[in-house]
């Protein structure tokens, strides 16, 4: 049986190189300007505009909050489009912000006579481009 003439040290170094170059995906470098890093929905809001209790299940009487975390600086327009069922419009609103760093922007909706039970969708766009979606239920 022939024994490999490659020194063990070279095999070790090659393994490190392969590990460094492949495997787990790395996040793309952030584009210039503002980008959305997370979207949460829940029933309450903290002082820093984060969601106090993240959930995807609401009661008819709830005010529904969405908190959008952004990174980067510069002018940006965030739009929250809330729909019900197969696309019935619930609300559509936007905010133009000029963050200088990480920021949170919240949108909220309420319905005095209660939300109809069913599935709802929240589509968030940043400068007209889709930045993420969330779906939740009212029971």
């Amino acid at each position, binding site marked *: 049986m022939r024994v490999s003439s490659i020194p063990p040290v070279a095999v070790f170094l090659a393994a490190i190189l392969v590990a460094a170059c492949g495997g787990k995906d790395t996040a793309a470098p952030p584009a210039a300007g503002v980008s959305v890093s997370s979207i949460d929905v829940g029933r309450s809001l903290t002082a*820093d*505009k984060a969601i106090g209790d993240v959930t995807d299940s609401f009661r008819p009487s709830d005010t529904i909050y969405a908190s959008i975390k*952004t990174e980067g600086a510069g*002018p*940006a*327009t965030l739009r*929250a489009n*809330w729909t*019900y069922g197969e696309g*019935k*419009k*619930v*609300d559509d*609103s936007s*905010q*133009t*912000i*000029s*963050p*200088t760093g990480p*920021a*949170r*922007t*919240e*949108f*909220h*909706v*309420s*319905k*005095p*006579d209660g939300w*109809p039970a*069913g599935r709802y969708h929240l589509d968030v766009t940043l400068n007209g481009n889709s930045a993420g979606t969330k779906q939740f239920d009212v029971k």
Partner: protein
Amino acid sequence: MGIFDKKKNDTTDSSPDFSNVRSGGSSTAPSGDQAPAPAAPRTYVVVSGDSLSKIAKREYGSADKWHQIYEANRDIIKNPDLIFPGQTLHLP
């Protein structure tokens, strides 16, 4: 009558009504709708060979606007035909 007609013709009668939804929002980031900060006052330091009309032509594109510079600097310009190198003029 009107309500009855509306209901009669409404093919989405069972569809939920979201017309009374209230919405709002806020952000930890400054609003992009805020007016930009006012520009800092502009000044110009007179150099040899300058005249108010030359400065007006250079700064505003029209020599005829020399009197605007003169009016904005009446406290330091006594004679519009006499300005001196080193004088700092306010540009309105």
